């Protein structure tokens, strides 16, 4: 579902491919509903070992992150701090991961490449970044941790299934058409970098 509130565009789980039709790279979004932390080893388990993911992420969202969690009573947990980790590490697994799990929104840090872009295009999914270094903002968007699976992986790697409210801001870095914000930007950056190197070089000929 898509909701609009106070000028914010909010994706609410379950999210359909249709909901992502109007979402483009560079858009600013928020997410409400089911978000599960999922990183290196969990990807490996799903893709390489073919294990079934114990939290249903179909039409929901995952977050590349290893949070700091405080255990409460009765098998409950509190999110103390959570920030995205470099998404690129999951690039290798992401096509198969999206195909198998049916996840709709992937949140992380920095860009990803063709594997993920192809998955986004083929299966109707997006990759977003949440500005990194903002662990407290992200943590307070978590209303409750509903489940914790694959706990044998330790705190950072456990699948923490969270109910979030207006989690964000999320900036779309790959949209469902497969356009890739960072890859497009990098071409601009590199071009301007070459110009600047030339410009500065003319002024630093200190060795004569």
């Amino acid at each position, binding site marked *: 579902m898509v909701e609009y509130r106070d000028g914010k565009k909010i994706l609410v789980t379950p999210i359909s491919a249709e909901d992502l039709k109007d979402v483009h790279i*560079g858009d*600013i979004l928020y997410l409400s509903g089911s978000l599960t932390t999922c990183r290196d080893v969990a990807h490996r388990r799903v893709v390489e070992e073919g294990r079934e993911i114990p939290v249903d992420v179909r039409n929901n969202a995952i977050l590349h992150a*290893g*949070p*700091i969690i405080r255990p409460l009573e009765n098998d409950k947990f509190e999110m*103390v*701090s*959570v*920030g995205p980790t*470099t998404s*690129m590490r999951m690039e290798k697994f992401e096509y198969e991961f999206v195909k198998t799990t049916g996840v709709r929104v992937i949140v992380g*840090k*920095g*860009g990803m490449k063709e594997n993920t872009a192809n998955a986004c295009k083929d299966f109707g999914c997006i990759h977003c*970044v949440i*500005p*990194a*270094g*903002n*662990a*407290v*903002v992200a*943590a*307070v968007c978590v209303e409750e941790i509903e489940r914790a699976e694959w706990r044998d992986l330790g705190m950072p790697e456990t699948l923490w299934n969270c109910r979030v409210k207006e989690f964000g*801001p999320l*900036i779309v870095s790959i949209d469902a058409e497969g356009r890739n*914000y*960072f890859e497009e*930007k*990098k071409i*601009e*950056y*590199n071009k*301007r*970098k070459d*110009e*600047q*190197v030339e*410009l*500065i*070089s003319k*002024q*630093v*000929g*200190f*060795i004569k």
Partner: protein
Amino acid sequence: MNKEAQVQKMTDMMAKFVGYTGKKLPDDVIAKLEELRAKETDALPKVIYDTMFRNQELAVKLDRPSCQDTGVLQFWLKCGTGFPLINELEGLLKEAVIKATKETPLRHNSVETFDEYNTGKNVGKGTPTVWWDIVPNWDGCEIYTYMAGGGCTLPGNATVLMPGEGYEGVTKFVLDRMTSYGLNACPPLLVGVGVATSVETAALLSKKALMRPIGSHSENERAAKMEKLLEDGINAIGIGPQGMGGKYTVMGVNIENTARHPSAIGVAVNVGCWSHRRGHIVFDKDLNYTITSHSGCVL
């Protein structure tokens, strides 16, 4: 106060100070971020800065580390030969990190190499890192604290150029690093550049440069000129906050230099992320302290 009580006192103060720096950014960084925030006009950089400032507010209010990666602790000391705790200093800093890890809490970021396990205490062989400068005929001690996060440590690089490559080569070396690794290191960045003879002399200087306040300039006129040229040049690339595009990419460029061998130019680059958690505290011989980095910080 006997020696033991003094050691305990300084350990407690350093543990508190380290924890504090994980929750609140130094004055110069906040001022610079405010300045850059005001200059951005597009929606993306604006929403990113809004998030950053809300995060720093919440961190103080809820008393939590502002970024989940509280880094590996690094200390730069300028210690007087007459400082009463000079012999105990390195040991007590380690204790202070263990204490801060529990009390703040800090993330466990010390993995023993080769044995490849996390010590769970943020200390290990050679961590926290302590660099010494000995100051003769002084009885005080000056300490820079720094949390080196993973993301902002990654762009670090050093090389030795042939003199023929000159400062033009230095320029290219630094700028190449910005577009390859810098954009993922949570810009706006503080960029440290070391120019010397070999990789280790340049590398050390490049990190030391990050301890210098934002807005300070090299004493050498040409180095200061190059700081400005690099700063404007990197900004012009347009990487912006979080690498997503914007008018400003750096909080500053600081260059530190020494003389070099005629046949070599050692150059290194190091970056600090927007969450540049640097602290500066000076102790006198009676352990009275002055904090210059964070106004209003009381231990």
